[in-house]
């Protein structure tokens, strides 16, 4: 059976969907992902859909479900890499993916997540953060 890999990148989980999803694969992905979030204590989930030619209501619902699951487990979900054609189709269909954050690419998504967390996630700020309490 096809399985979508879940990669760990710092405290963010990266899911890159490369194939058209079947029901089984989707259920498997939701299971895998929730387990990995708990196991790794991830704070963010990035779902890359740049390989998807078609995003229909099924995929939209899957994304919404994953976002909801992650939110319950205290992780933000960002969908990245949506193709222009896909975005146009979604707009024409009137599907607007409510409650799902989007970013242009993985880099931007990492920025969004770090900003949302508003903590010492970016290394340059780490050093400042460390020196500040040490001063007094």
């Amino acid at each position, binding site marked *: 059976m096809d399985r979508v890999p879940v990669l760990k990148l710092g405290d963010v989980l990266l899911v890159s969907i490369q194939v058209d999803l079947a029901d089984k694969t989707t259920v498997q992905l939701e299971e895998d992902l929730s387990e990995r979030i708990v196991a790794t204590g991830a704070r963010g989930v990035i779902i890359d859909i740049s390989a998807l030619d078609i995003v229909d209501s099924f995929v939209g619902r899957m994304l919404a479900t994953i976002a909801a699951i992650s939110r319950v487990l205290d992780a933000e979900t*960002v*969908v*990245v890499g*949506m*193709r*222009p*054609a896909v*975005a*146009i189709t*979604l*707009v*024409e269909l009137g599907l*607007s*993916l409510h409650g799902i*954050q*989007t*970013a*242009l*690419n993985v*880099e*931007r*998504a990492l*920025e969004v997540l*770090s*900003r949302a967390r*508003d903590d010492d996630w*970016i290394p340059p*700020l780490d050093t*400042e*953060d460390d020196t*500040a309490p040490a001063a007094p």
Partner: protein
Amino acid sequence: MALSTDESRRMADRLRTDSADLVATWVAKAGAPLTGRLSEGELRRQITELYGVLVAALDEGMTDLSAAPGGELRAVLADLSRGRARQGFSATETAVSVFTLKDALSGRADLADPAELRDFLSFNRFIDELGLFTFSSYSAAREELIADQAEQLLELSTPVVKLWEGVVAVPLVGTLDSARAQVVMERLLQALVDTGSPYAIIDITGVPAVDTQVAQHILKTVVAARLMGAECLISGIRPQIAQTIVALGIEFGDIATKATLADALRHVLRRSAARTGGRAEPVA
């Protein structure tokens, strides 16, 4: 059916007698309405070519322009019409080149002879058919030309420019119909992907009027950009357009609108500065 086989053969014979003189008369008569805009040599070449294929087609016993022997004749006529259409001649000036063959022939026919008169009349009908064909080829060529130009205009009129690091803008000029809106949307979204810009500005200074349909197109573009993870602003809203938008009850929702492109750029720069600045604050 314009001609019988016999008639077409007789007509071919008639055209062949003293052909040099006939072509010369035809060229002279066809050239008159063109008022020197087409060189005599060029016109003579066209008429001679037309004369050649016409005689050849009639020799083969062509009864109808749409019949098989008329293939070459149709091609030559279509070629002539297309050429004239592109050179900017009017439809009349094009068709007259064919119709003047009647004048050239009428001078040499003995119309008192009933048989000859009958032949002449049926040949007249046939020339009318040629003329109509010229007309329709001419208009087809013109329509093709217009379609080409419309497409070029579409290409020209929707540039996506990079304004700043991470900021792209589309200055819209001219009326926005569905086809253009689609092109604008595709271009903008592609530019977002190519440049990785998280901000886009749609400037509508050059859009003469905004109705509900245009607003719908713009809103769709903004929503699509959002789906891809970019923020989209609308700028260049002129006072009259603002009034129209309110009068029509168009809601832009939470989409930021600015009066000028400069305002929009300032807004974006402040937003992106706030992103990094906002992070630094809790640290300090």
